[in-house]
């Protein structure tokens, strides 16, 4: 059980033990496996891993170097990666990491397993809308403003997709766009359920 204390990257930015902060666990897990996937194509140092990760997942938050090195340290401790070379030229020391056979098994297990569907907890949009309904404030206006915000983001992503040619980036953007579209459809359904007076239509 990992019990490191860290600042949660989630919106509340509180300090949690990694063993109890779901955001940290999920983020750490998916970053670890993504890095193992990059190392499966050949040894690399932290800088290259960060660059390749950010290029493969353009819609994801770019990795911080600290996060890359912390993840590599954990993977090394677990036997999934090893130090292949430590080069010291004129600049800072550069450690090249390589995938171990154990790391390959970890990666293959991850690739074989289907991910759980959800859960999709009530997020900020849902909380805000329901709070507005309970308070009798302008929930319909809130939904319309939120839709405009989502559509603006959808336009940015569609332009980005139209401009790009890399298949991996296109597929990653498809995923983000599909989720954004699901939110938009939820916003529209919620708006349709509300009568003009703000009461819920059932």
């Amino acid at each position: 059980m990992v019990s490191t204390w860290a600042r949660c990257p989630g919106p509340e930015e509180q300090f949690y033990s990694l063993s109890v902060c779901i955001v940290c666990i999920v983020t750490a897990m998916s970053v670890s496996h993504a890095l193992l996937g990059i190392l499966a194509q050949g040894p690399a140092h932290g800088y290259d891993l960060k660059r390749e990760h950010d290029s493969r997942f353009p819609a994801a938050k770019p990795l911080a170097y600290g996060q890359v090195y912390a993840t590599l340290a954990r993977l090394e401790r677990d036997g999934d990666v090893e130090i292949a070379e430590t080069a010291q030229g004129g600049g800072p020391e550069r450690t090249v990491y390589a995938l171990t056979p154990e790391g390959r098994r970890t990666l293959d297990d991850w690739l074989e397993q289907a991910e759980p569907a959800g859960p999709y907890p009530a997020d900020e949009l849902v909380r805000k809308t329901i709070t507005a309904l309970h308070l009798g404030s302008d929930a319909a206006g809130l939904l319309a403003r939120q839709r405009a915000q989502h559509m603006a983001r959808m336009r940015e992503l569609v332009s980005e997709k139209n401009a790009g040619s890399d298949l991996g980036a296109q597929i990653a953007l498809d995923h983000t766009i599909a989720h954004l579209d699901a939110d938009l459809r939820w916003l529209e359904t919620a708006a349709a359920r509300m009568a003009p007076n703000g009461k819920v239509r059932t």
Partner: protein
Amino acid sequence: MSEVILSTRAVEKSFGRTQALRGVSLELTRGEVLAVTGPSGSGKSTLLHCLSGILRPEAGEVRYNGQRLDDLAEAPRTRLRRREFGIVLQFGQLVPELTVEQNVALPLLLEGHDRSAARTAARAWLDRLDVGHLAIALPGELSGGEAQRAALARALVTGPQVVFADEPTGALDTVGGEALLDVLLSTTRERGASVVLVTHDNRVAAHADREVVLVDGAFSAAGVLA
């Protein structure tokens, strides 16, 4: 300031007791791609039909290049529509008895072009939209995506100034829909034509320069995006 090519002012349209459009005012500029979105039954297709001169509103006016379109008699309105507008519907609506090439040549033949010139133009557009090899096929032999490309060729063959597309990707899967939209927007943009794109799909609407949202026959102010 951009030149307004098509506009409506306070347009109203009813079908029996149902009021489909309630005082809709809109301006479309040259070269602009406008998405019209909104729930089912909100009046999107009725607006498209009024804008394209297929339907006449009961009140308000529709102008094309400054000229009243809604008070033109049927024959000149049809001629203007055939010459200046291209229309693509959800299921292509090709004439089933005619070959693909004949379908595409049809608007030119109706305009009095000679048969050989119409065939050449039709073939060029079919080639351009990657369905030239289907020129002698009948519409019933085409996939949904192929039929939509043929319908797009038919809409573009007269060199229209405005293309109206009513759920053009509605019958296609995501990748097929994107490919059709790409060809629709690239061909119209390169010719400087305007597009009115009716859709309930936000991913399609996101390709437009501007979006208007219809709710119960009127624009939703909060849904209009600059």
